[in-house]
């Protein structure tokens, strides 16, 4: 077996193309990001090596903490909403007896299929303080809760994160459904024979068996939230003021609006490290052992 699974030619053939391509296209530029984060640099001229000064400045920068906080809010919103709703829907749909199952399954994924631009335009209209559907719904229900969802510094980040959470829930739904479907039926049946109710059975049997999938769902949701950019760019432009900045947005601002490319890459470098730590932690926390059924 060792020889069979340790076939050097096969390993090289399978991994080398990916590693080479990835190293050249993604890692080489990323390494330059880390290197350039130690420069006072406008992105074009030679630049000046200042070692860790950019990092010092970063940790004193108010905008950095705003961005960091927003990234964390975004990540938590995504993780809770997407994985929570995704789990409930995936487990329900994995039951073949649900009526309208096919329609439901296709529907839940639709928002993912649309481009971010379309979805953001829709939600801009939904959130609109004057004509927005959300305020109208509150009005119809007789709740005096008219809000300037996106123009209010306190609600804006939640409103934007909700759009992303809603749009990309389908990803998690699809991944979790695939995982739930590939669990052999007899596991649940065995649990059911024991008299456990279905959801309890899911909680005890199905969900633990899906740990491997949950791992990348969490990685996807949390790093997606920390990295959020497109939603802000289209919906709020980071505003009102700086209230919906995230680290990627801050990087963009420094690099392109201010022209401090070196400082911008510092924020980006911090972001990459932050995401790596999170991924590492998730891998440590969830299912250390391989699951086999």
């Amino acid at each position: 077996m060792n020889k069979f699974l340790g076939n050097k030619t096969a390993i090289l053939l399978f991994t080398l193309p990916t590693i080479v391509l990835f190293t050249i296209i993604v890692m080489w530029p990323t390494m330059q990001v880390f290197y350039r984060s130690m420069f006072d640099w406008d992105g074009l001229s030679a630049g000046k090596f200042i070692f860790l000064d950019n990092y010092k400045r970063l940790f004193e920068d108010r905008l950095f903490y705003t961005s960091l906080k927003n990234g964390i809010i975004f990540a938590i919103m995504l993780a809770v909403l997407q994985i929570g709703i995704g789990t409930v829907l995936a487990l329900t749909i994995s039951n073949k007896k649900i009526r309208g199952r096919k329609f439901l399954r296709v529907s839940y994924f639709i928002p993912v299929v649309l481009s971010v631009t379309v979805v953001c335009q829709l939600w801009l209209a939904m959130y609109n303080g004057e004509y927005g559907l959300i305020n109208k719904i509150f009005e119809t229900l007789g709740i005096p809760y008219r809000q300037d969802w996106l123009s209010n510094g306190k609600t804006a980040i939640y409103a934007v994160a909700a759009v992303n959470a809603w749009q990309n829930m389908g990803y998690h739904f699809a991944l979790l459904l695939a995982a739930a479907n590939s669990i052999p039926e007899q596991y649940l049946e065995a649990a059911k024979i024991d008299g456990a109710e279905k959801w309890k059975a899911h909680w005890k049997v199905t969900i633990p068996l899906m740990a491997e999938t949950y791992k990348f769902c969490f990685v996807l949701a949390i790093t997606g939230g920390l990295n959020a950019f497109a939603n802000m760019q289209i919906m709020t432009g980071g505003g009102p003021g700086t209230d919906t900045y995230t680290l990627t947005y801050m990087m963009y601002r420094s690099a392109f609006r201010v022209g401090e490319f070196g400082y911008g890459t510092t924020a980006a470098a911090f972001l990459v490290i932050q995401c790596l730590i999170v991924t590492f932690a998730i891998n440590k926390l969830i299912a250390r052992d391989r699951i086999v059924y």
Partner: protein
Amino acid sequence: MWSKIRKGNPIFKLFLWIYAIISVYPLVWMLFYSLKDNNEIFVTNPFGFPTNLRFENYTSAISQFNVPKYFMNSVFVTVITVVGTIVLAVMFAYSAARLRWRGKTIAQMYIVIGMFVPVQVIMIPLAILVRDFNLTNTYSSLIIPYIAFNISFSSMVFYGFFRTIPNELEESACLDGANIYQTFYKIMLPLVKPSIATMVIFVFLAAWNEYPIALMLISDEALKTLPLGLQFFQGQFTTNWGAMGAAMTIASLPTVLVYILFSEQVEKAMTVGSAVKG
């Protein structure tokens, strides 16, 4: 609590269907949008059925801008990206998840880093790379980075799926005298087919909607993809939003089709796959 919800609880059913409606509505909204004028879109009727069906929005979307050309470019770039990404990622993930070599967890971790790198920040180094390889203004200048960026997530997903396959399968294949390539192709690939179909959808979407890289690396009108073409509907101060909606609708059609087609495959593959395993 869960047990109550399960037993055909009408509230839970209602939730399932309401959520489905909320999910499908954007598609309907986009269709409506594409048949309205600016005033209706923003002020008088942002959500309902258009009062006046303006099909001319579609004509102006197609005639004013090079939509058919953009469309073909998007198809081309996306299809190659999907094929390239899936092939590379499946091979890599199989190797990292199941073959025995030193440093494989590190290698897997290494590839995953690609998920965290904000594309905006490596744009300039990437553009320089593309220039140095003489790829400026070619399809490859999009396809190669797209593949490289999509490999991270795909291989992570495949890795997860490969790890849930029991070891006995390879052992028995080995005993039957199959070599590693045969095992990979004939035994392993069919087992991860559902996840391949899932990833086809994901990578397709990512490549189809990709905008920042295309904006930076493509300036030749003949090579522009749809998101890039759409961007220029949006003027600095005024825009024909209805025509933009029409173009967005045209641009979204393939993604909806690909999804419906491949999710069907996921379903079928699932049923077969679990039957085999059971």
